[in-house]
């Protein structure tokens, strides 16, 4: 059931792929807010909420959720088509942590009460979630996770610090990985907690990053009391749950679209600077273009695996490495032909040089 309109959306799995693609394309072209097309930076909730609510109204917010919870129950192939069409048109990413992370988490590990309380609130745009995983000085395997939650009566008392929390200042809820058993080793002894951001003891401090954008935050926890009912699943099993959430979205991290868009800008800039026909530029441009086409071909082989209903092997992560490296080289080329303009603060999108590639 659609959380906004109350009507069940059409089952789009019934459409052939190509027809589905055109359907999505037409919808995006007809409804996407023009003023936030191809944003140079990650948008805040105040900027992307309009698009979020348009998707909500259409019943398209949660392509992967089951239909009984207001999702589209869309096959992975069709989810990818949807992503491709959104990217193609230059749609902004929304504050989608509730959709992408909390939904699947609660559907798999949540209690009936938790599902009832949280899922519809996400679809209505009432709960805006952020992710509290990263900590200062922690490796990516969270072995040295230090934010701690101690059970006192019916509450967990949380102390510690999270960092690089994407759009943390937009959120009214945060999902946390916290250490609940100090004696356990490494990834054991970690639990999953859902915490309202207005709980006393939480302080949010935006991080201004190199391109002078406050996309990330630090979040401090000082004796923050969280009802034990906000624990997801079993205590001390948080890391297992977090890993299970890394689904087919991993392929998205290696999408060639960022590089494709940058290469298009490179071509335009070369035209503008009058170097497009120089052999030196052509030579480098050919390398970048061919590398992009090969990345697309490799990306396609993983999409094809999904299409065949197979899982993604761990080496899907190489897409991200290849894409980052290629994007970097395209940016280098942009900087080079821009000449002195590359030093300007507002010119094309060169602050991407200063951006941490996620």
């Amino acid at each position: 059931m659609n959380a906004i309109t109350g009507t069940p959306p059409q089952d789009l799995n019934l459409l052939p792929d190509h027809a589905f693609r055109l359907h999505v394309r037409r919808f995006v072209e007809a409804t996407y807010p023009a003023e936030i097309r191809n944003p140079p930076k990650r948008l805040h909730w105040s900027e992307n909420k309009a698009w979020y609510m348009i998707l909500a109204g259409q019943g398209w917010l949660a392509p992967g959720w089951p239909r009984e919870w207001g999702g589209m129950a869309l096959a992975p192939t069709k989810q990818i088509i949807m992503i491709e069409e959104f990217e193609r048109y230059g749609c902004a990413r929304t504050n989608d942590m509730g959709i992408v992370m909390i939904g699947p988490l609660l559907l798999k590990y949540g209690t009936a009460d938790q599902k009832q309380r949280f899922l519809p609130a996400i679809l209505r745009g009432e709960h805006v979630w952020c992710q509290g995983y990263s900590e200062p000085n922690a490796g990516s395997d969270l072995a040295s996770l230090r934010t701690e939650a101690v059970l006192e009566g019916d509450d967990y008392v949380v102390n510690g610090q999270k960092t690089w929390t994407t759009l943390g200042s937009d959120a009214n809820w945060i999902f946390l990985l916290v250490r609940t058993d100090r004696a356990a080793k490494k990834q054991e002894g970690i639990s999953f907690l859902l915490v309202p951001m207005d709980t006393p003891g939480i302080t949010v401090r935006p991080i201004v990053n190199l391109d002078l954008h406050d996309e990330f935050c630090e979040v401090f926890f000082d004796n923050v009391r969280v009802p034990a009912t906000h624990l997801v699943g079993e205590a001390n099993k948080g890391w297992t749950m977090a890993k299970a959430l890394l689904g087919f979205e991993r392929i998205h991290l290696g999408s060639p679209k960022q590089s494709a868009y940058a290469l298009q800008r490179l071509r335009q800039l070369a035209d503008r600077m009058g170097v497009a026909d120089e052999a030196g530029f052509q030579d480098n441009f050919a390398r970048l273009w061919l590398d992009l086409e090969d990345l697309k071909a490799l990306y396609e082989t993983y999409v094809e695996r999904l299409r065949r209903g197979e899982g993604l092997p761990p080496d899907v992560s190489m897409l991200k490495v290849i894409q980052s490296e290629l994007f970097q080289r395209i940016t280098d080329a942009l900087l080079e032909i821009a000449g002195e303009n590359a030093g300007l603060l507002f010119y094309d999108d060169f602050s991407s040089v200063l951006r941490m590639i996620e």
Partner: protein
Amino acid sequence: MSQDMATSADDRAESIRLIRDSAAAIAPPGGDLKRIRACRFRAPCFDAAVWEQMGSLGWTGLRVPEAAGGAGLGMGEFCALAEQLGAGLVPEPFVASALSTGLLAAALGHADSLRGSGAAGEALAAVLEGRALVLTAWQERANSLDAPGTHGAPRMFLPMAGGATHFLVPVREGAGLALYLQSASGADLTLEPTQDGGVFGTLRPEGGVKIMDDTSALLPGALGEAALGTAAMLLGVMDRAFAMSLDYLKTRTQFGRAIGAFQTLQHRAADLKMQVALTRASVEAAAATLDAGAAAAQRVAVIARAKARASEAAMLVTRQAIQLHGGIGYTDEHDIGLYLRKAMVLSNQFGGAALHRRAFMAVAPESADD
């Protein structure tokens, strides 16, 4: 995707898998290279008996239409087999021969009125049985995919030419590019050894019978398919060299640790893995594009992409593979060096990376919109 398309894609995948498996007959996956070492630097630098076996397996006529006695298979199968032969460093000139059988089959289809068609038919039949080797003597200078057909000009870089029974020689005649079939016996042919233990021949063409009036519309496409086949061989070369290096990293120890545990070596191995994966994606996409009957510009673009990638990646991977092996990699005794030697020969055959990048740019504006 419709159910029908899915099934046909599955059939296709199965056909390619079968060909890939059958390659084990000649190029055992275990990787024993005794036969390869026995052939190298010893005329004719490949094994006539194995060539005959390749005939009886249907490989010498893999792309030849069934009507002309071949297997009539697609570029998907051709590349899958070429990859396996590359992995096994098989010296028999599978790709160069396929270029000629394609032209011979076309000649038989087009030119039955010509005096030479009988000879062409016999030559093709002999190649299909693995009793003959026909090489196409198209190339007049290095770094070129162009066959000018200059009368009397020496034709260069004929691989394994010492074992050829015939040559096909394109010759410019007026507006057309005629094709002559010349016997190898008595031909003015000089041989120079190549890094992989084979030879390049230089032919000063003379005589022969005309088997086709104009091959100019066919030859570029045929050379393109040979370039893609060579890219597939390079894929096999680098894939196997990488696999050998990974094994080595896992089993060798230094300072009491498996050397594969050293972070720097892990990073280098990861880089090579990406190159192999990108090459595979590029080659297989190109083969599929050709088999799907794409337009000429699109064909040139995907072939150029695949060969440019394969040529550069193969040199990088095989050279790094030697370094990952440490000192032992620099001895002729160890097999890993043979992979670099093969890459040195194949990388520039049917066009090197720079040539193919230029070819891509020449057609890409027409073909790259998606």
